[in-house]
């Protein structure tokens, strides 16, 4: 592979960029992802996952079974917000910052 070979197609991240962050101490797919965005694209690393594992193996000598898989996150494929929404406007876990402003005797606490 040439150093300009694209490893992550979604985010256009080259081999060179990945090698560089590994040289800086990154060891897992998630370390590399946070530093380069490799794996954060629409396919959510389905395409680049194995390629990255190969680069980690080559650069660090770590065995494939020792390389942790990237954390798979919901949704597994892109989904519209309206599909997730239930159209309710009562919130419990989700707050508004003004909820945190409290008044006491007509003054901000």
């Amino acid at each position: 592979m040439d150093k300009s070979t694209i490893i992550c197609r979604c985010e256009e991240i080259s081999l060179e960029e990945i090698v560089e962050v590994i040289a800086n101490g990154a060891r897992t797919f998630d370390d590399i992802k946070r530093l380069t965005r490799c794996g954060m694209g629409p396919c959510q690393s389905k395409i680049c996952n194995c390629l990255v594992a190969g680069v980690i193996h080559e650069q660090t000598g770590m065995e494939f079974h020792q390389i942790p898989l990237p954390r798979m996150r919901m949704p597994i494929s892109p989904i519209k917000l309206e599909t997730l929404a239930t159209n309710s406007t009562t919130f419990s876990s989700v707050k508004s910052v003004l909820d945190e402003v409290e008044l006491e005797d007509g003054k901000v606490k």
Partner: protein
Amino acid sequence: METSYETIIIGGGVVGSSIAYHLSERNKEGIVVLDKKFPLSGTSGSTQAWVWVHNKTPSWYAEFSMYSAELYPYLSKKIGDVEYKRTGGLSPFFSELDREKAERLAEAYEPIGIKIKVLSREEALEKEPSLNPDIVGATYSSIDGNVNPFRLVDRYMRAAKKNGVQYSTYNKVTEIQKLPGKFIVRAEKGRFECKNLVLAGGTWSRELGKLVEVTIPINQLRGQILVTEPLKPFLNYTISGLRQAFNGEVLIGYSMEEEGFNRATTLDVIQETANMAIHYVPSLRKAKVVRAFSGIRAMPEDGFPILGKIPGVENLYVAAMHSGVTLSPLVGTLMTELILDGETSIPIDRYSISRFA
């Protein structure tokens, strides 16, 4: 690897890395950052990263946050592009009761130099046309903004390394011993010695404190965030609840759950977060979510930063807080002053761990 240092910082998140960088500007040698994993594996890699000031309470905490926000433009000049953008911050509200709060807030913050405008519905919609037309109004301040947290920590780390700071990662600290004039720090990859020890373990601070028999009252508070596909730039401001990043993604979320260290994402909170997004910005309805993630806040028992010397143990320091992204430039600056000069340019007594005693 050499094992004797002037200063060891435990934790390489945004707080520990900012302290390392600021310290290295003045002290080129003898600094090492130890991290049990890798910087960004903690809370700093799973955050909204608003640089947020205007409706923090009480006023002294807002003022402290403002000083930090004001350091951002200079910081980005020094360490490189961190995609900091002072967009201004909007907090929409949907009830007259909130307008009352907003008015009082604006009055109270005027004297400390935080300018808050309480916008009418029309003014808010003029500023941010995508907001829900059902809003009653919004608070606005030009001081707020946001930053790319990945770049921020990466740049702190690179700048610190350039100044001679070492990072020893995948190296969990398991034991700390205090001897006269020095600490012995045992970690997975070996034994380290130092004069000054800084605990910057974020949400793990309580565990870290136990190693020196100090109670650091930090609890866990989970937050879940949804990320959309990149959309063409359409949000002008950082809205408390959602923001659009440089690459067009919209990050949505302001949830709080006491779930310990469990970093799962859950359908109920994802649904509520989707409801919030559509309630604030109805056109997001059609946007696709590509990712959900969760982060564990480091939440001090009373909500405010725990910062400064640990009384009773010479040369032991702590820096643990929520809103560490907003506060990191100031915290790095003040901790450096405290370690090297013994005093800070802005008082931090209020944030001392001794308040819990």
